[in-house]
Structures are given as C-alpha cells and as structure tokens.
C-alpha cells in the first residue's frame, strides 16, 4: 500500500486522499484471527471482518510480537542469571546488573512494604513495555510491507498500540492490587477502605462511589496512558510517512517533500526514544505505587 503511495505521483488528488485514508486504516488494523462470517476460522481481511469476529478473536500480530520480545528479554536475563558470577562481571552481565540495580532502586524508592514479587514484576514490566514501545522506531512500512508480500494482510509491529496488550497488563496489575489489598487489610478492611472514607459511615454510598471510581481508574489510566501515547506516536509516524507520498501527487517538488518526510521522521523518532522509555518507566512506577498503596493501612 505504501509503495503504491510512494510511486503514486501521477494520481489525482482525490485518489491520493482516498488511498491516504486506506493507508492509515491499514496501518491501524491488527492481524485478527477468529470466526469469519461464513462460520470458518481464519484471518480477517478487513476491519469490518475483524470487528464481526466479536470477543473470541486473537490479534496475532500483538501476540507474536509481545511473546517474541518478552522471550528475547527473558532469554537475555536468563542467560546472565545462569552464568552469573560474583567476581568481576563483564559484558551482558554488567548491563543486567545495572538494570536490576536500577529497578531495585526505583522500587525501594516508592515501595515501602516487603514483597519479593514487586521488584521482578517491575523489571518485567519495564523491559517488556520498553521493548514493545521500541518497535515504534522500526520504519512503519518495513515489517507490514515485507509480510504483505508474503500474503499477510495486516501487521501492527508495536504491541503497545493495541489496547488488548496494555489492558492485559493493567488488569494483571489490578488483580495484584486487589489480591494484596485483601491480603494485607483483610476483606473487611478493604471494604472499609472502600466505603468508610472520606465521609464516614453515613456517607457510605457516596464513599463507595468515589473510592470505586478511584480503584477502577487505576488499571484504566494505566492501560490507556500507555496505549494513548504509543497510539498517538504511531499515528504521527503514519502521518509523516503519508506526507511524502500524498504530496508527491500534486507537487512538482515531490523530492524535496520526500526529504522533509525523512527529516520529520528522524526528528520524531529521536523524540520518541524519550517517550518510549518514559512510558515504560511510568507504567512500572505506577504499578509499584499502586501495589504500595495496596499494602498500606489507611486509618
């Protein structure tokens, strides 16, 4: 699709606009596997088909990319953990030790209770989310273009632009928050926390409403923040990529515009390195903070 655009210098503006919309839509569509309208199971070839599959469908691109990235990260850390030496560390072990010290310091900074789960959880979240976000820096047409040649209709390379991935993690964190809230405060204590403040026992329904929203807001904000940032970033990459191709349709200085696309892409990619890291860090830190709140007794 993009190559079509890049070479579409002879097309009229109307057609260019039409293909621009298609181009954007194409880039925002996951590779979905589910039950097709004719009753067979297979891959959806349009957004409508994917939508019609309902809940029981899988976004294969999200799953494959996140599994691959998570596996690479875990394999890297595991290979170090297996051959870890207490003497002078070298190479990859230096990096992993730095990573662990960094996570440990961050967790210690915002988590006051004792829990052996929180630090590894933070490590997993940070590096997994970071690597998923980092996929945003791969030029947007490379992987879908390559797979398109092999007959794969859609492929979103960045799993964190799929709300399924971010909500999956956020719900995992939310379940942990619920579990530790109940474990630390008891079921009664947790219910008390939800219903007895801030207005005392006579304001119970209001309290419950406020605290309920507060509680539900945690996973939703966690998931939507990451999703929103990465989705927006991806969108801007798509628009920048579109620029060169679309403008080439009615401008004689198409080469210059194409150059400016490259410059803008570069600038946005460099800026995006910050967003990629920051969003991973924010997701991790908020997870730790939410778990810390779950461990804390309110009075």
């Amino acid at each position, binding site marked *: 699709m993009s190559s079509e655009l890049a070479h579409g210098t002879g097309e009229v503006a109307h057609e260019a606009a039409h293909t621009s919309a298609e181009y954007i839509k194409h880039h*925002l*569509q*996951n590779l*979905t596997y*589910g039950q097709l309208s004719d009753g067979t199971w297979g891959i959806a070839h349009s957004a409508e088909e*994917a*939508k019609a*599959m*309902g*809940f*029981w*469908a*899988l*976004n294969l691109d*999200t*799953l494959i990319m*996140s*599994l691959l990235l*998570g596996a690479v990260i*875990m394999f890297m*850390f*595991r290979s*170090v*953990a*297996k051959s*870890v*030496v*207490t*003497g002078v560390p070298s190479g990859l072990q230096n990096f*992993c*030790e730095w990573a*662990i*010290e960094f996570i*440990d310091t961050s967790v210690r900074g915002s988590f006051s209770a004792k829990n*052996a*789960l929180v*630090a*590894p*959880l933070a*490590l*997993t*979240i940070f590096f*997994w989310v970071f690597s998923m976000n980092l996929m945003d820096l791969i030029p947007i047409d490379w992987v879908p273009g390559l797979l398109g040649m092999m007959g794969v209709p859609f492929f979103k390379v960045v799993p964190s632009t*799929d*709300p*399924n*991935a971010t*909500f*999956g*993690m956020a*719900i*995992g964190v939310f379940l942990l928050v619920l579990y530790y809230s109940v474990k630390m405060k008891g079921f009664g204590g947790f219910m008390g926390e939800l219903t007895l403040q801030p207005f005392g026992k006579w304001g119970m329904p209001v309290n419950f409403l406020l605290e309920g929203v507060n509680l539900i807001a945690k996973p939703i904000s966690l998931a939507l923040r990451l999703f929103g940032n990465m989705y927006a970033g991806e969108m801007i990459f798509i628009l920048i990529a579109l620029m060169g191709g679309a403008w080439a349709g009615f401008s004689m200085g198409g080469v210059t515009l194409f150059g400016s696309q490259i410059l803008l892409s570069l600038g946005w990619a460099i800026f995006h390195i910050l967003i990629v890291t920051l969003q991973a860090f924010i997701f991790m830190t908020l997870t730790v903070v939410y778990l810390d709140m779950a461990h804390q007794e309110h009075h």
Partner: protein
Amino acid sequence: MNINATLLAQLIMFVLFVWFCMKFVWTPIVAALDARKKQIADGLADAERAKHDLELASKRSAEILREAKEKAGEIVASGEKRASEIVEEAKGQAKVEGDRIIAGAKAEIDQEVFRAKEQLRTQVSAIALAGAGKILGREIDAKAHNDLLDKLVAEI
C-alpha cells in the same frame, strides 16, 4: 483496535513472564549481587584488620629490636668487664709467678754466694796457712795449731 480474547492471552503471558522473571532471573542475579556485596565488605574488613595487624606487628618488631639492642649492649658491657677481670687476674698471677721466680733466683744466688764464700773461706785458710808457714819459715805443725787455724778461719 477491538477488545478481544487477545487481552486474556496477554494477561496470561504477562503472568508467565513475571513468574519466570521472579523465579529464574531476579533471584539468582540478586543473590549474586548480594554475595558480591558481602565479598567486598569482607574484603574491606580483612584489609582493615590486616592494616591493624601490620601496625601491631611493626610496633612489636620495634620493641623487639629495642630489647635486642639493649641486651646486646648489656652483653658487650659484661664481656668487657669480664675481659678486664681476666686481664687483672692474669696480671696478678703473673706477678705472683714473677715474684716466685725472683725469690727462687734470689735463694739460688744466696746459696751460690754462700757456697762461694765457703770455698773462699777454705781457700783463704789454706792461703793463710801457706802464708804463715812461709813467714815462719817452717812447717807449722798442723796438728798443734789446728784450733788456732780454725779460730782464724771462723774469723774470716
């Protein structure tokens, strides 16, 4: 962009990764880091102790050196004293010996003198006798004048 079962799959994947990280990544690496921390702390403590020991040892060695010097001085002094004592003793012994030799020599000389005197005396008496005989011109009756001669000899 639809919410679908991917969410559940992602949730399961997330749980598995966290479990794996906790069990097989975090624990061994943190254990190694702690072990290294302990090693370094031990090493530093050892170094500190060694430094302390070195200080003690150098203090002790200086003390031993000082004692040794003192002792050596004492030994030299006593040796000198003993040497002078021996010299004095030797001197005394030599003196005694010398005196003894001198005394022996003197006694011998006295004896010699006495003997010479005795000889001289007998010879003098013979000369006197011969002289007297010559003076008188005749033979003196030795028998008759023996007691007179003896008296004369004794006088000489």
